[in-house]
């Protein structure tokens, strides 16, 4: 039986991005459907992070188009881009929590700037809810420097989710974490996706993370989408370029 095709939320067509003479993305194509987790696999320096930074508008692509909810991100003015960004969350590899602010202030900061009419009671409720979602409500008045790597990742995830984004971009969410904490983060990603019905692009080298979170795996090679499929489909491939990731 043929399954109904889901609505696409991100459509990337012929994306090209070069730094100097070096082409990092060279005609990359990808469609992300609503409610799916797409994992981008690739060697270090293959352009995975560049790709998601182009999607969020941190980097400007040289050519091609990135349509998010049918709007071309690469042609947007700064103010339009800010509006579009409110629908996209980004989890940084380094967490990028504001180290001069408490956890509460880290979470309040985007809220107060995006939703200017929000009451202080509502802010308090949303911050508490976001921290409860990651089981870290007790850290609310702590500074980021007082927390462990795994806790920081969960707080960063809570901050990413607080604006209720419809799409989340994860830049290596489990890198540098022990297997147990990695598993916790993966479960959290799946739990929050199920709760908020988000679509995601996950950059990862961690094959456990890929296996546990991916609906679709895309291999980025030489700036192009080399192959895409489910984890099991790619695992069974005899292609040397694919096999090396599963060995």
């Amino acid at each position: 039986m043929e399954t109904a095709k889901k609505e696409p939320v991100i459509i990337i067509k012929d994306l090209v991005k070069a730094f100097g003479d070096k082409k990092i993305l060279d005609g990359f194509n990808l469609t992300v459907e609503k409610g799916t987790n797409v994992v981008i696999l690739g060697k270090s320096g293959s352009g995975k992070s560049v790709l998601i930074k182009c999607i969020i508008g941190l980097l400007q692509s040289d050519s091609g188009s990135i349509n998010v909810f049918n709007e071309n991100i690469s042609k947007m003015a700064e103010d339009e881009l800010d509006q579009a960004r409110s629908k996209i969350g980004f989890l940084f590899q380094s967490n990028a929590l504001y180290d001069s602010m408490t956890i509460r202030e880290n979470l309040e900061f985007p809220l107060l700037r995006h939703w200017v009419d929000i009451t202080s009671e509502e802010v308090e409720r949303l911050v508490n809810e976001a921290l409860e979602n990651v089981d870290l409500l007790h850290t609310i008045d702590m500074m980021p420097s007082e927390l462990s790597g795994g806790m920081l990742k969960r707080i960063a995830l809570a901050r990413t989710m607080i604006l209720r984004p419809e799409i989340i971009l994860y830049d290596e969410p489990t890198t540098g974490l022990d297997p147990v904490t990695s598993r916790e983060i993966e479960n959290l990603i799946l739990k929050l996706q199920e709760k908020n019905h988000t679509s995601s692009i996950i950059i990862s080298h961690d094959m456990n993370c890929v296996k546990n979170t991916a609906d679709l795996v895309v291999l980025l090679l030489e700036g192009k989408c080399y192959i895409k499929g489910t984890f099991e489909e790619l695992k069974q491939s005899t292609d040397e370029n694919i096999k090396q990731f599963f060995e």
Partner: protein
Amino acid sequence: MSLVIRFKNFLDETGNIARFTGRFFSLGIKPRYELKEFFNQCYTIGYLSLPLVGLTAFIMGLVLTMQLRPSLVDYGVESQLPVMVGLAIVREIGPVITALIFAGKIGSSIGAELGSMKVTEQIDAMTVSGIKPFKYLVATRVLATTLMLPLLTILGDAISLFGAYLGVNIRSVTSFDLFFLQVFKSLDFSDVLPAITKTFFFGFAVGIVGCYKGFNSTKGTQGVGISANSAVVLSSVLIFIIDLLAVQITELLGLN
């Protein structure tokens, strides 16, 4: 590195700073205003710099008086010591030394803070949250440095004159009233106004250079150090250039 490449890099850097300054004027004056962060920066940049500025100003006034006295004694004009010290402090030494101390403390701290935020992707995190980091981080700091340095200079001048008063009293006895009467009698509106006006430009230079260097920091933690260091060096050089221009303009306007 060849001289041509160095010159090209210098021109590139100058162009980038000019563009960064232009961005400050185009973005920084538009709402929404980050008032809370601006007052927070005024407190950090202004109030917390006061002890250092006060101490250096006090020592500067004291030492300047002690150094000037022998020369004035030789010429038999020791009684003019308060006038000489007062003019030197208010017109030149107060604003420039305060600005250099300010560049060392605040320029380096802004360069290092923003540089560290840049390399740890905190600035990118603001951008992806739809917050304008230029407005939140740069505009608030540059405005705070521009407004706080003149205030610090006025306070520094007052503390420096008090140091000078104590310096005068080491070898002779002059009353507090007489000392300050002589100082203020010798000062004119045209001595005070250009001296305070130029400190707005000094403060602006320290803020914009510190923010530019921090905002464009690269190469990880090493880059943060480079940003902090080059922010101090460049803003100190700019202070002297602005001072030179200020003297020329003052002369052209007949305020000297």
